[in-house]
């Protein structure tokens, strides 16, 4: 058998139907499925994965592969070409970290610069150029972004218990998940050790990120891995206004001030009647209604206002409309007939 190629997918077409680990072929087992792990992208059959990785992490069985793999990460490959599969994975990861949009920048130029940086980073990872440094920068940027979004400065209402803001416990879970992932990957490979140690002790290496070093004031600002010119400061989601049931309208009653309570004989009984109180009836509402009824329309003089309205209706509109209206009025008798008699 040919020895497994170190470049994933190279022999896919030729050995596509034979598992490189157990050498069983699809000819014998038509239900055979091949799985890959996004660490090293070596293909193997499902039964091999079950057999080797069921009891926890184990080194990749392909000779010469130095990665330790775990069973949950095995999956069916989406693309026939494993190079493409790998590139898509990398792009997905980078895009989830460097996830700015054009609206986040002051101009198109700044956004294009940003996109170039993103593409450069992606290709660095794909082609294996400066992988450690790039991963480290991505990690720093991710942490910085998360810190910015979840910082207490951008969460002013968190202390007052705003339900819309992410809760404290959710934050903790996120951190914890992050921590676990760190522990998982810590023992993985030597290649990542530098990045891990750097981020764990929290002191960034100024030399590792030239782009950031030039602009950030190292003394004040923590290192964020990347820095983009023209990136707007994160302002957080717009603060929700308190709900206004009247939609901006308000009442300004000018003829009365409502008293908390009124005492008259004929109200004494209904006020304490359990039939009323039990139903949630509030006498204060009735006071409000009564006082409103008393003065609603006090300053409305129908004699003047209705006459004015009628005058305006006659005056309004240009001459043509006016004449047409007059013609209509002459044609159709108003009143009873316009009332479109039901019978």
């Amino acid at each position, binding site marked *: 058998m040919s020895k497994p190629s170190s470049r994933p997918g190279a022999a896919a077409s030729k050995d596509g139907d034979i598992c490189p680990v157990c050498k069983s072929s699809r000819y014998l087992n038509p239900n055979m499925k091949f799985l890959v792990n996004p660490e090293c992208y070596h293909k193997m059959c499902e039964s091999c994965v079950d057999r080797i990785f069921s009891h926890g992490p184990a080194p990749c069985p392909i000779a010469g592969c130095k990665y330790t793999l775990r069973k949950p990460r095995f999956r069916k490959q989406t693309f026939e070409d494993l190079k493409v599969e790998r590139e898509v994975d990398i792009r997905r990861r980078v895009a989830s970290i460097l996830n700015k949009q054009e609206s986040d920048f002051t101009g198109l130029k700044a956004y294009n610069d940003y996109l170039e940086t993103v593409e450069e980073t992606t290709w660095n990872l794909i082609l294996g150029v400066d992988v450690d440094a790039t991963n480290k920068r991505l990690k720093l940027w991710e942490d910085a972004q998360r810190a910015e979004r979840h910082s207490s400065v951008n969460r002013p209402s968190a202390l007052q218990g705003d339900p819309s803001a992410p809760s404290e416990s959710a934050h903790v879970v996120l951190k914890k998940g992050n921590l676990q992932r760190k522990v998982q990957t810590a023992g993985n490979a030597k290649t990542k050790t530098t990045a891990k140690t750097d981020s764990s002790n929290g002191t960034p290496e100024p030399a590792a990120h030239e782009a950031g070093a030039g602009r950030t004031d190292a003394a004040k600002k923590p290192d964020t891995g990347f820095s983009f010119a023209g990136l707007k400061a994160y302002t957080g989601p717009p603060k929700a206004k308190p709900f206004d049931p009247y939609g*901006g*309208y*308000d*009442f*300004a*009653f*000018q*003829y*009365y*001030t409502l*008293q908390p309570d*009124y*005492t*008259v*004989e004929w*109200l004494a009984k209904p006020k304490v009647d359990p039939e009323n109180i039990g139903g949630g009836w509030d006498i204060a509402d009735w*006071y409000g*209604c*009564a*006082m*409103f*009824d*008393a*003065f*609603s*329309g*006090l*300053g*409305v*003089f*129908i*004699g003047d*206002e*209705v*006459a004015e309205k*009628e005058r305006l209706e006659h005056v309004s509109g240009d001459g043509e409309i006016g004449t047409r209206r007059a013609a209509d009025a002459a044609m159709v*008798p*108003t*009143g*009873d*007939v316009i*009332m*479109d008699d*039901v*019978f």
Partner: protein
Amino acid sequence: MKFTEDDIYRLSSQYKNWSFTPSQLAATRLQTNIQATEHIKATIARQRAARALKADPEGISESERAGSSLDNGNATANGSGVSSGSGTPLRADKEVDCLTAAEEKKLVDIFCEKALELGKFLNFPIEVTATGIQFLRRFYLLNSPMTYFPQTISRSAMFIAAKCEDHRITAERYAESLPNTTPESILAPEYLITQALRFNFDVKHPFRGLKGGHLELMEMARGNAPAPPKSSASGPPRSASTLEQEMRRLPPPRKPHGAASNLSTASLEKRITDAYTHASHLLKTSALLTDVYLLYTPSHIWLAAHLLADDPLTTFYLGTKTPPATPLYAKILTTIRSCADMLAAHSSSSSSTRSAPHADPDPDPDEIPRLMKKLRNCRDPDRIDLVKLQEGKKRDALATAEQGADGAVRLEESKAKRRKVAREGFQKEADEFWGPALEAGKGEGEDEEGAGWDGKMEGGERGVEDKLVRQVAMRRDGG
């Protein structure tokens, strides 16, 4: 945007559709009267012509000419156009003596009083009765009592009011409690009324407003209620205790220029309660039976009633709301006084102690029977039986085709056909969705299934059409 009480009132349908100036009100009534008169005269003339045609086929050309001349010019149709006609008894009662606008208004007033009694008889709360009466008044603003008989309408309007004011009663029970009434006769004019009301079911009454004012006056008398912030032209509004002191020194109610008394709290409260009782009585009677609802806002109405009950107290109270030196105050007071005059002028308030300045002279005792008799002679013949009309509207005028020999009421053939087609369409759609209707307990042949309902209807339709054809043929033969 801030809303004041007045802005909110301006949004109500009562302000938008049912508020008039006195001249507008009179013009609307006159127009309604003129239109109804013309319509009735034309209808009766047509009917007479048709009757003449039936009774005397030879004189058709004669009577037709008479009918057409009546149709063309109602103003000139005083018999001169047909003077050449032979003196048949049909021609004798040529001119219909229709009601005038003033007589119509008097009739409506009479029936409003009747409606008030009806409400009392049915033990309805005053709000329901008041709403019913206002519905009646609004209805007869745009319809004439000659067209629709007020008693039928008032019963139905009261029923609608009961529903609007949350005083539920079924049509059956309602009809049972009244003599010579069936649920159908209650329900028949219902849609007619609601449409005439422009579907405005909300009537704003002054009753609760009066209670609110009374509550505040009582608190003021006890020194608990300060004046509202805008009540003073200069300086801060008067405090509660100042108001109380001023209130005690008010002159007594019946003598506005009498000596100022210094009342104790108890007697002041009694005075306020008396004023409330009197005003409440006025609102429940004369306010309902006059046009004040159409001319003034509820706020003005209750203040006017209160003014009639206790003038100094009301003017003082108004002064706490708006500074007495401003034009607004003067205007409100003028409006209220004119409203109060209107209330006082009504006969039902003549029993009150305050003398009405220009109350109507006692109505002629023969007036009511005379008007009723006149109304009986000039009613619109097409709209006497509303129940039948309603039935005709619901189905294809199967019932009404018989009635109205002149064809005014009968549904036109095309309309009936259109309705039938639409109904069949609905039926078909329903059948497609639900399947055809089950023929319960029939057990007939397959071919009969599904044809029962439609087949019957078609038979009915055919009957009507045959009848129409026969009528037309008869007429053609006659001519």
